[in-house]
């Protein structure tokens, strides 16, 4: 059963530190998404890639967040410097268009706490 994997699952850090979250999409999927979920804002799309190229990152604070796909098996989301307001669960998802159906497969998330 193919799944999206994310590391680390939990991260506690201090304000000002760099945070790197990693995602391994399902093999063969050509679309990768980064979401952030908080109680106040719900699920927010931060960025997404197709065939490793960034298509949209308008939901991402540009001054401190960056997302990359060094290769087809790895996507990264970095926060530098981190702030307490970045505390949230960060989800990665991957997808593959199949005819008229397009679904996203979500990973288990990285729970980030910035002190």
């Amino acid at each position, binding site marked *: 059963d193919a799944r999206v994997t994310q590391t680390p699952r939990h991260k506690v850090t201090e304000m000002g530190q760099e945070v790197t979250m990693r995602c391994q999409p399902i093999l063969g999927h050509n679309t990768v998404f980064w979401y952030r979920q908080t109680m106040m804002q*719900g*699920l927010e799309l931060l960025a997404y890639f197709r065939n490793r190229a960034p*298509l949209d990152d308008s*939901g991402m604070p540009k001054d401190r967040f960056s997302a990359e796909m060094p290769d087809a098996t790895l996507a990264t989301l970095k926060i530098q410097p981190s702030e307490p307001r970045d505390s949230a669960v960060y989800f990665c998802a991957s997808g593959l268009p199949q005819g008229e*159906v397009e679904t*996203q497969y979500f990973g288990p*998330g990285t729970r980030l706490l910035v002190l």
Partner: protein
Amino acid sequence: LAKTTQPISMDSYEGQEVNITCSHNNIATNDYITWYQQFPSQGPRFIIQGYKTKVTNEVASLFIPADRKSSTLSLPRVSLSDTAVYYCLVGLLYNFNKFYFGSGTKLNVKP
């Protein structure tokens, strides 16, 4: 951006059929309707997707009226394990920057 409106929460009992309705008055001609389910401490999981009329899979049914301004997710004979948040999304396939998850509907299934 086609936003959606769903009830914040719903209660049901085991064995009952649950219908969750989503309003999307500004749906565009080419938009599809997709429903996701999210359990606590997990990422959302795809349930069903449709464009018009009725779609059924092994998990749920999706009813879409002719004007497509709303849709109803139907869960037959729910169990305690169906307790989750259900999200209705409306958007053009492959244009994920247009998808909006909203606050979802918290379904609480009681024994």
